[in-house]
């Protein structure tokens, strides 16, 4: 990766004193992940450029687990942009090479430290995750002029569009130590990934580094969040090996967020939980199943708002159950509380004898995650075998989607939804299921009832 810093300060060669690096020599420093070089492609009185070239050892990156985690059956570890794109490795190199400059010392020309000089910075491949204007939003408020050219993914395949890399030129007039500090913090922020573990000492470091300029930066929240961002913790690496890139994004970031983001303006989730809990309360169930419990939000409500003596959550995702256990604080519950709740790993497409003998089952926003071809298995597992007295099923009402701003026409609310049903679709399915298994079914909407398209969530209550 490469970074060049050019100044037109007179005499420009003062840059050498400031950086503590002789413009007439090639100097190197060994880093944990490779080698950093400093040299000057030009060193004239009116214009001087220092180049930082970092050679990242790609094999070592993998062997010592310094690379990015996961993705595409983990091949992402081996074929990745880290040796080339500006990233936290560059920050580490700046730290190592220019420690003296960063600390605001300059032995031979101390007066230079406080001088604001004109600088031009070039980063030929700066990865940016986020909106197109993020570069501007990050750099302009602290006095940079940004010139950014997006880099095409592949010139031979123009329809693939642009990559997330920009060839970036920043111009500003500032103190060198501020310039270096800001690059150090902001390059990884734009990249939104870091090669080393983010610990609590990072907070101190950020406050120290960004002290003055960060506290007034309009994007300070985003900068802090990303800088302190914990690496994605995949508790189940075995699973990851079976998934594609898209799935991981789906499972990780998107899982709750995507759908919640769409539905948030009407706080649908809370209303949904309340409606489901009310049904459980109304039927007086003592033993309740939450099928597809995810991270146990419904369970928490069932525990606190009903008299159920036993609430069992079942999910196919082990990770979700772990999150659920944390959300419920299972490990610090008193024995009596702990007695009331259980989380089981299971699947709704395999018959499961443990699910027999319950009074009620709630299946909240689950069926739309099943492939239509697996619905018949689901039906038999729940209605033919587990067969609780009451089954509450909720699912999106696709008719309502036109009322959501920010949801493209025809798009579903979540990338993993295999279908979203109209009220008629849902009623047809539910009535057929009910008649096959001796249930009686009633329907209700959850959320604002639109005269034209109905409520955003539809609920069916099956009673045996």
């Amino acid at each position: 990766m490469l970074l060049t810093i050019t100044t037109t300060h007179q005499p420009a060669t003062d840059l050498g004193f400031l950086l503590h690096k002789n413009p007439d020599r090639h100097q190197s420093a060994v880093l944990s992940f490779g080698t950093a070089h400093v040299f000057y492609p030009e060193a004239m009185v009116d214009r001087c450029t220092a180049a930082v070239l970092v050679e990242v050892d790609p094999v070592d990156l993998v062997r010592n687990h310094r690379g990015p985690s996961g993705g595409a059956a983990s091949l992402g570890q081996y074929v990745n942009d880290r040796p080339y794109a500006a990233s936290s490795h560059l920050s580490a190199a700046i730290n190592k090479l220019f420690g003296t400059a960063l600390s605001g010392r300059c032995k031979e020309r101390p007066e230079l430290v406080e001088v604001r000089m004109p600088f031009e910075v070039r980063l030929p491949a700066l990865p940016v995750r986020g909106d197109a204007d993020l570069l501007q939003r990050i750099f302009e408020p602290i006095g940079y002029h940004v010139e950014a050219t997006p880099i095409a993914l592949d010139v031979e395949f123009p329809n693939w569009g642009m990559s997330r890399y920009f060839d970036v030129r920043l111009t500003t007039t500032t103190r060198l130590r501020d310039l270096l500090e800001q690059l150090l913090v902001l390059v990884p922020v734009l990249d939104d990934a870091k090669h080393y573990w983010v610990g609590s000492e990072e907070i101190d470091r950020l406050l120290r580094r960004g002290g003055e300029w960060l506290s007034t930066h309009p994007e300070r929240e985003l900068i802090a969040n990303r800088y302190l961002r914990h690496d994605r913790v995949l508790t189940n690496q075995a699973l990851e090996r079976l998934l594609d890139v898209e799935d991981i994004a789906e499972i990780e970031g998107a899982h709750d967020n995507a759908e919640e983001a769409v539905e948030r303006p009407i706080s649908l989730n809370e209303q949904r939980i309340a409606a489901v809990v009310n049904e459980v309360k109304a039927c007086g169930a003592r033993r309740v199943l939450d099928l597809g419990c995810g991270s146990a939000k419904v369970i928490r409500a069932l525990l606190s708002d009903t008299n159920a003596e036993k609430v069992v959550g079942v999910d196919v995702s082990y990770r979700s159950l772990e999150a659920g256990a944390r959300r419920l604080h299972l490990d610090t519950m008193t024995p009596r509380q702990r007695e009331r709740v259980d989380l089981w790993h299971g699947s709704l497409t395999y018959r499961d004898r443990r699910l027999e003998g319950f009074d009620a089952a709630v299946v909240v926003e689950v069926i739309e995650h099943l492939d239509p071809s697996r619905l018949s298995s689901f039906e038999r597992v729940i209605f033919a075998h587990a067969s609780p007295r009451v089954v509450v099923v909720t699912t999106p009402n696709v008719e309502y989607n036109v009322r959501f701003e920010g949801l493209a026409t025809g798009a579903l609310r979540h990338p993993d939804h295999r279908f979203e049903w109209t009220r008629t679709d849902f009623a047809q399915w539910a009535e057929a299921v009910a008649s096959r298994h001796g249930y009686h079914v009633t329907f209700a909407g959850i959320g604002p009832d639109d005269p034209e398209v109905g409520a955003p969530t539809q609920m069916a209550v099956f009673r045996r």
Partner: protein
Amino acid sequence: MNIKIPELALVVLVGASGSGKSSFAARHFLRTEVVSSDFCRGLVSDNENDQAATQDAFDVLHYIAGKRLNAGKLTVVDATNVQPESRRSLIELARRHHVLAVAVILTVPESICHQRNESRTDRDFGPQVVHRQLDQLRRSMKGLRREGFHRVATLEGVEEIEAATFTRERVWNNRRDDHGPFDLIGDVHGCFDELGQLLEQLGYDLADDGSSATHPESRRAVFLGDLVDRGPKTPAVLRLVMGMVRDGSALCIPGNHEVKLLRAMQGKNVSASHGLAESLAQLALEPEPFRNEVVHFLDGLIGHYVLDDGQLVVAHAGLPESMQGRQSGAVRAFALYGDTSGETDEFGLPVRYPWANDYRGEATVVYGHTPVPEAVWVNKTICLDTGCVFGGRLTALRYPERELVAVPANEVYYEPVRPLIDESSNVDVSRERGELDLTDVAGKRIISTGLARHVTIREENAIAALEVMSRWAIDPRWLVYLPPTMAPTATTKIEGLLEHPTEAFKAFRDDGVETVVCEEKHMGSRAVVVVCRDDAAAARRFTADRPSLGVIHTRTGRPFFEDLADETTILERVRRAITAAGLWEELDTDWLILDCELLPWSAKAEELLRTQYAAVGAAATATLSAEQVVLEQALARGIDVAELLTSSGERKFMVEGFVDAYRRYCWEVTTLEDLKLAPFQILAGEGENYALRDHLWHLEMLSRLVVADETTFRQTRHVVVDLNDESSIENGTTWWRTLTDEGGEGMVVKPVEVVRQGPKGLVQPGIKCRGREYLRIIYGPEYTAAHNLERLRRRGLGLKRSLAIREFALGIEALNRFVADEPLHKVHECVFGVLALESEPVDPRL
């Protein structure tokens, strides 16, 4: 005294402390067969004599004994057992596991007990303890039989104890050494004429007077009970069957009707319903000696049999695995009446739980009892009662051939209380049969395969597979195979390369393989194509959920196409080509499973290509170009960066190679015509697991599909290499070089014979040998730099090779089971296992 005990029993030793039970047990039983209370006390308390630990110790004792009985192991309980309550819980335990309990009482004079106890420093209880124990023993002696022991043996005095011997007797229902062949015959119910016709059709010679029948090839009939009642000729049926049993040409087990008839004939008070009246009336016309003979015959019938090394179980109403070969009232009741709950249905008949739907046992269970319109296999069980007496058919199953033979009833002899075909029920029976239970896949599992014996699936891998299977995979009824992973060739030392054919050829030669075929490695995604000749074939062999020609799925069992219409279009073309090539007729099948690559890779992996490969190429190109410029400027200033410029230039060159490498995988797919299917193996069709045939056969057959439809199919280019011929090896190597120089991915080297045993077990079914440029997109653009390559050569292949063998064995097993029409859960277990193994932590670059 010689004490006879059943080979599977719970032997309860009874005797006071110091009566010599432990040394007695040690003389007559295996150390592992004896569970002693002292030992269990030690386990829970570190002190074998800690009486405070007695309750916990007995919990442990019961637990161990229960596990042993469950596994079918004779178990001896070495404890005083002088109190009735301690014996009661042991009898309860025996009953729960359907085994007989035997009591062996050891009595020695009180003085000897004292003497022995005193000589032991660890026993510090006083004489009153033994005195009390002997007292309790004396008081319970008489009632022991009534407590529920099958047999009670009392050994009095030291000498008799010393002299005692044991004989282990075979359980009556154990006929494991009887291998048949058999003709199993369902409920006859007095239909003598039909029985005669059926036996003749099966090849038996009937005696003219109907007193017996024999088979010229000494086959034997097995009557599944309910010979009597309802029908017109119960006595004739009995005469024939009794004769055949007597002559050794038949076995017979009782049905509920025989039991009731016997009770009636013994003068017990039973209601003469369900056709009993007819039998009694017919038998009343028979002479007395015959009637006595009948009573004697019926009284001697054994409830069920375990035959053919435990592979075959016959019981009138069926039998779950936990009861097979066991003896208890519950076993007899189940075998006679089935899984009843005591409730009755609207016709007044007992409600029977469909136990066969849950059957997961290894043995085939053949039974009758419940009239069904059609004899069909459900999880290795089959009911042969096809309601002959109700106007249905009399059905036999030839074993081991598993052929059904049936004769229609001459007339309706008896009106069924409940209609035979229950038309009011719209439950899809086939779906219930295909139902999978969580216990079929969850947790740690050990799967028996024909090729690699046992394959173990770890729990955490099963957890991962369960999520993927549930959330993304296709309907398991269509998912009968997942392709195994393949190991790469051993790492080469040839300069600039990681892989080269030399090592692959050598590996096979070392394993004793003489001929291999090198197949080009297609630059696509793995696709398994299941295709049926018509909807009917799909419905019969897979599922009738929706009309379908088949499926195309990925190597992890997902639908290959997001759009069902695309899948259908491709399947249509595959089906047409198979028809045109005449393969349906030639292979005599109406469905086939093909292992293929679907090209281009970008069709499936465009996301990966864009986000991963193209992105890296873009960033690298931009950076390295910029580096060149500044380095040249610096060099021009006389700065010593020549070396850096060279290495940066080399990196730029390697990145260009990387970009070229991934670009070869991308071609614009605008219509389905742009997709190419490259089949390389026919996995299975009706009645045959073709995956076991040699590779040249596959390539020859499949080339005919390419001829039939060149738009859809692509040939798998290949060369055959004779490993004993240096020039042939040279030829194979050159072929690989040409292939990869042209930008090809590489080749797969396979022994022509699919299954080979080498000196170290199963030989790898294939070894891949990938091209230098292709490996850039696997090992990273710069992997060929000498300092990188040197480190990358240290790669461990052991786990990958072992996984390849295990997954191969599971894949073949899945196909074997599917072809043999085994129940869905048996096939799914293997497929699930492959998916689970794929989540093992193995270097993804291999």
